[in-house]
């Protein structure tokens, strides 16, 4: 990963006029993607993510703003130059968009047609691409004979045919089951590492981002509301929407819901407190629970625990009931905070169960 920007979107606006109605799909968005990044753009449907990334290869012309890809001003390009530029920006789609009338090998070789390669060179390239995505034996099949995951692999091979430096993934895993999703994400990660491919990944699932992205931007209603590197976004989300996405991805939401239901029946007293402990990086290694007992006599009952490894950085979440004297509890919390652990006091009566 370098700090060299490969995609620079500045002040992008996209407005649609439809039957007298004006819809602003993207509002004043700037986004910089560096070479080698796997940049996740997360948001619910209708947030404008797809429109935004279509600006990168000018499948969508922005109403305002500037687009620079690989040092080229995309908006200034003539049609022919744009087509050349597009060969260096691969794209994959939610519904794969393969040609039903062509074999797998033909689909993968499609972008090379009319190019400089001879027939033999093209066949070699196709064979290499199919090998790269692990579908060599399907070369002569038709798309209708393949599973969803296999179709997406074909689409990836096709997108890579012209050796692009950028791959745009538009909800590419949204139509796939969880296991297939993981395998496609792994493939993207591998391509990122092997080929130095820069990936822009649009999704409504934070799980996908969590698995492979190093950076993430959260979109809502046409705007980027929060962005940053993956670990800091996951450990310190600021906007409620971001927290919501993360809690869904880490399954804390589901856990909290159950715990709250139970906590209401438990009836916690003054000596008990329900807290969420969150820790990043090295502090996951410390034997915290035992420490708290030894030092302050505070007993922690673990209700839920989860550790995510994000970009090789562990991110832990614990939901515990701490029992002890009120002043000892205070001291224990202070100790946690000093150790770099974020403490959130949870109130079971809180109706805000996200």
């Amino acid at each position, binding site marked *: 990963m370098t700090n060299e920007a490969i995609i620079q979107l500045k002040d992008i606006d996209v407005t649609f006029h439809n039957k007298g109605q004006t819809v602003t799909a993207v509002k004043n968005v700037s986004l910089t993607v560096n070479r080698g990044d796997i940049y996740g753009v997360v948001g619910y449907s209708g947030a404008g993510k797809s429109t935004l990334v279509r600006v990168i290869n000018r499948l969508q012309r922005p109403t305002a703003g500037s687009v620079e890809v690989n040092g080229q001003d995309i908006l200034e390009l003539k049609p022919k130059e744009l087509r050349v530029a*597009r060969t260096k920006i691969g794209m994959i789609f939610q519904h794969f968009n393969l040609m039903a009338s062509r074999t797998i090998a033909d689909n993968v070789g499609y972008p090379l047609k009319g190019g400089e390669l001879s027939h033999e060179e093209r066949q070699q390239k196709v064979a290499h691409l199919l090998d790269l995505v692990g579908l060599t034996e399907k070369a002569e099949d*038709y798309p*209708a004979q393949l599973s969803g995951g296999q179709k997406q692999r074909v689409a990836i091979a096709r997108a890579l045919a*012209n050796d692009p430096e950028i791959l745009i993934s538009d909800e590419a895993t949204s139509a796939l089951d969880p296991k297939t999703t993981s395998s496609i994400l792994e493939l993207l990660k591998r391509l990122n590492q092997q080929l130095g491919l820069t990936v822009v990944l649009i999704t409504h699932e934070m799980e996908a981002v969590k698995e492979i992205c190093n950076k993430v931007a959260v979109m809502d209603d046409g705007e980027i509301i929060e962005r940053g590197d993956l670990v800091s976004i996951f450990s310190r989300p600021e906007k409620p929407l971001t927290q919501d996405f993360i809690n869904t991805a880490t399954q804390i939401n589901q856990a909290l819901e159950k715990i709250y239901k139970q906590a209401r029946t438990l009836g916690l007293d003054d000596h008990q407190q329900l807290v969420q402990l969150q820790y990043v990086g090295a502090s996951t290694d410390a034997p915290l629970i035992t420490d708290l007992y030894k030092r302050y006599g505070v007993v922690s009952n673990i209700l839920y625990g989860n550790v995510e490894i994000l970009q090789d950085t562990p991110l832990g979440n614990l939901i515990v009931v701490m029992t002890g004297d009120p002043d000892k509890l205070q001291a224990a919390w202070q100790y946690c905070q000093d150790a770099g652990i974020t403490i959130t006091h949870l109130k079971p009566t809180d109706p805000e169960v996200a």
Partner: protein
Amino acid sequence: MTWFAKYFPNAVTMKSDFLQATGETLYMTFFTAVVAGILGMAIGVGLIVTQPGGILENRIVYNILDKIVNLCRSIPFVILLAVIAPLTRLIVGTAIGTTAAIVPLVIGSAPFYARQIQNALSEVDRGVIEAAESVGSGPIAIIFRVYLREGLPDIVRSSVLTLISLIDLTAMAGAIGGGGLGNLAINVGYSRFESDVTILAMLIILVIVFAIQLLGDLWARKVDHTA
């Protein structure tokens, strides 16, 4: 052949007439199909690419093509034959005869075919077009390598449909001087009360139609890989 002579007493004596009429029908059908096919294909593709949201969106061209197709399709063929007789004379030199019939046949069938092509191509997934655009395909490549290729099964099916309705039209053109099996059925069989001639002409047309339908279905199935 005695049963044939028994049931087709007049037709049995007209072997050469039938051969000639069948030849004329096939001649009209073939040449009209070639000219109207190219013309209709071009207009149909034109409609698809210039329509709102198309790859070469152009409201003016689209509206002109759309109006022409609608206009030509609104005129009943029998009337069209008479109305464009001067144009036919200009192109072919005469308004009567098998070759002359090709002009109204083209004008009568090309717009119909154009609509069929438009419908067939509108079934091509917009996402596939977008994917082709995203790998750098230009309009010409998208038309020939995506639209016409992906739409082929439907194009074959609608071509069969158009061809069959074209044979219907040749029969009508034949009745007013274009020759062919229609001419034989009406001007000989019907006018002279030799109904066996009419029936035989009809049977030959049926055989041609069934043959086209059968071959078309086989071809469409061969190129269709969607299931």
